[in-house]
């Protein structure tokens, strides 16, 4: 992203200045705010955002510079050699107190019903520098609330502090310019042109950058209070860009609630709305809850993982290796591919390996910001893994070849993100016509296909360790898994190990 490239292309020469009695060396031309941001000194602010241009309107990041009469805003203050800057002096704190008071003068007391509560800058600063006894004893200015400004958004202009971040985001990042600030003085309200909506695929970023509860996400609206949620870093499985994200869940109820971007070189501060929906399939109502196998009468029934593995091995023994085929979707981690191919290709010598891809996909598509036509997180990794075991690495949908191959037993790693596969159902149908298919999947959709005789529940991307390789081959780490929302779920590595064990002992 552009912001990143700026960071990398900064001029060589650096300057040193003093911030809170601590010498800080930064590239020439850096503002005090950036310098503080990079050196973990927190200067309170509303309108400044590392991913956006400088507006300097909230007047909250006031700092004291030695030998200068007035307080200055850190976001537009260039660090110069030898400059002494302080954010701790009483006069600065007093200024912050009043800056906050001015923000709160017309801010409604919506905290009980505001989704931002708990991660709201106004609340945080109020705890820090609040005038606990407000001097405002006059009626507040009222503005329109709960407006529908986009498919993903709800706007409350009364909570808005007019920091201008959303307007700049629309102008600078998405270049759609759908938002403006109308009227002037304390009558100013942010909004879209009458009856026009925000339509792009990056709406929820407005919710993220909004320092208060003016923009709230329609998907997350009222679902949970944020202080109940735990977040863990992960990588978005929505497309081959592999944005770095945080997944938010409430482990006590084993429910996932939202996905938010995490600052990184890959995606800067942003991510698309499609990616934000990748938590839904992790919730229990959409998960395959238990392994399924057939009993002697050939009837489907719930079994333990051990039984499922045993029956799979039995099936494997009953057919010749050249009749075994693997159908692999590019939505699993490199580690999983390694283990999978290690056993089936290297050990068993299976040669029929096909990719499970979406026939309608347009790989070269790109929206110019983040979202890519390849809706799989690990196409790159799969090709690598295939190449490693000496198989063709070219990216193509292998369904037809599979049908022609006359395989009698297929082990299929089904796609995890179902909504990225419009033709998933028809693919299931085609697959179910084959003699024996063992479908390894996270989703309950496969269970509803009666013809599937053998199903193994897998963990979702937020529940396992591993790594994706994005379109550039950059590594995206999945290092902090949540406990699986489904008891019987395992990742491919665990399943394959089990299969290998049984296979070995059965010899």
């Amino acid at each position: 992203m552009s912001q990143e490239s700026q960071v990398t292309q900064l001029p060589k020469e650096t300057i040193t200045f003093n911030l809170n009695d601590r010498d800080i060396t930064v590239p020439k031309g850096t503002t005090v705010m950036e310098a503080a941001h990079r050196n973990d000194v927190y200067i309170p602010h509303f309108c400044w955002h590392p991913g956006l241009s400088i507006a300097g309107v909230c007047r909250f990041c006031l700092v004291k510079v030695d030998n200068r009469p007035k307080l200055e805003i850190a976001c537009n203050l260039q660090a110069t050699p030898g400059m002494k800057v302080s954010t701790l002096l009483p006069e600065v704190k007093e200024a912050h107190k009043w800056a906050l008071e001015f923000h709160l003068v017309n801010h409604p007391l919506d905290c009980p019903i505001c989704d931002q509560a708990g991660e709201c800058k106004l609340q945080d600063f109020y705890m820090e520098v609040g005038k606990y006894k407000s001097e405002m004893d006059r009626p507040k200015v009222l503005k329109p609330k709960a407006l529908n400004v986009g498919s993903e958004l709800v706007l409350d202009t009364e909570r808005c502090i007019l920091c201008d971040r959303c307007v700049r985001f629309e102008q600078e990042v998405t270049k759609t310019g759908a938002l403006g600030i109308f009227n002037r003085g304390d009558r100013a309200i942010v909004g879209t042109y009458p009856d026009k909506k925000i339509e792009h695929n990056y709406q929820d970023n407005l919710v993220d950058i909004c320092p208060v509860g003016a923009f709230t996400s329609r998907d997350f609206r009222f679902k949970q209070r944020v202080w109940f949620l735990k977040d863990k870093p992960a990588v978005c499985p929505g497309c081959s860009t592999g944005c770095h994200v945080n997944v938010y869940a409430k482990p006590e109820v084993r429910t996932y609630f939202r996905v938010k971007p995490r600052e990184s070189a890959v995606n800067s501060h942003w991510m698309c709305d499609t990616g934000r929906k990748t938590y839904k399939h992790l919730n229990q109502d959409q998960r395959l809850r238990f392994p399924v196998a057939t009993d002697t009468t050939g009837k489907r029934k719930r079994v333990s993982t051990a039984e499922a593995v045993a029956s799979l091995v039995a099936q494997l023994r009953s057919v010749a290796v050249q009749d075994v085929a693997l159908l692999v979707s590019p939505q699993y981690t490199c580690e999983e591919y390694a283990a999978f191919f290690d056993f089936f290709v290297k050990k068993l010598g299976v040669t029929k390996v096909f990719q499970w891809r979406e026939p309608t996909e347009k790989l070269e598509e790109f929206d110019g910001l983040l979202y890519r036509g390849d809706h799989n997180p690990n196409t790159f990794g799969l090709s690598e893994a295939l190449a490693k075991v000496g198989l063709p690495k070219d990216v193509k949908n292998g369904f037809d070849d599979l049908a022609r191959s006359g395989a009698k037993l297929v082990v299929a790693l089904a796609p995890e993100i179902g909504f990225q596969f419009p033709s998933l159902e028809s693919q299931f149908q085609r697959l179910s016509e084959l003699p024996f298919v063992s479908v390894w999947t996270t989703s309950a959709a496969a269970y509803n296909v009666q013809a599937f005789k053998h199903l193994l529940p897998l963990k979702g991307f937020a529940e396992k360790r591993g790594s994706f390789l994005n379109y550039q081959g950059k590594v995206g780490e999945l290092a902090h898994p949540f406990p699986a929302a489904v008891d019987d779920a395992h990742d491919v590595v665990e399943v394959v190990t089990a299969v290998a064990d049984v296979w070995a002992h059965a010899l």
Partner: protein
Amino acid sequence: MSVFSESLQAKIQSFLTRYETRRSAILPVLHAIQDEHGWVSEPQIEELHHTYGLDRVHVKEVISFYDIYKDHPVRKYQIRYCKNLTCHMLGAREAICRIKEHITALDAQLGEDGPFSLEEFPCLGKCDGAPVMLVNKERVEYATVDRVDEILAKYAPLPKL
């Protein structure tokens, strides 16, 4: 089919090329539209957006920001009465009350077709003629409460109060 008259279209075109950037033309264009129509309607903004490439959000922002631009229909005679310091000291408040009385009376008869609308205006920069008001574009000085009646009568017949 354009919502603008031939002459107005020509004017707008000339403004678009007159300044360094197209956007700079927004203010003059809006002035031109208001001189002809008195206010700026949404269809007009839409045409500016689509035909003349003036972004509708930018135009709306400008209209809402500046006092002169109106996004709702206006009366035949818009009175802008200065209520600032000097005019206030020399009797603006009483005159404004008087004008309001007239307008209420007129509106009682004519409703929306009443000839006058009143806007208490920040400042008109003619303090040596205070109290001063603008009727449309015409500046009227010494518009004290005792002269208000005759001044308004020049524009439209007034009912007895």
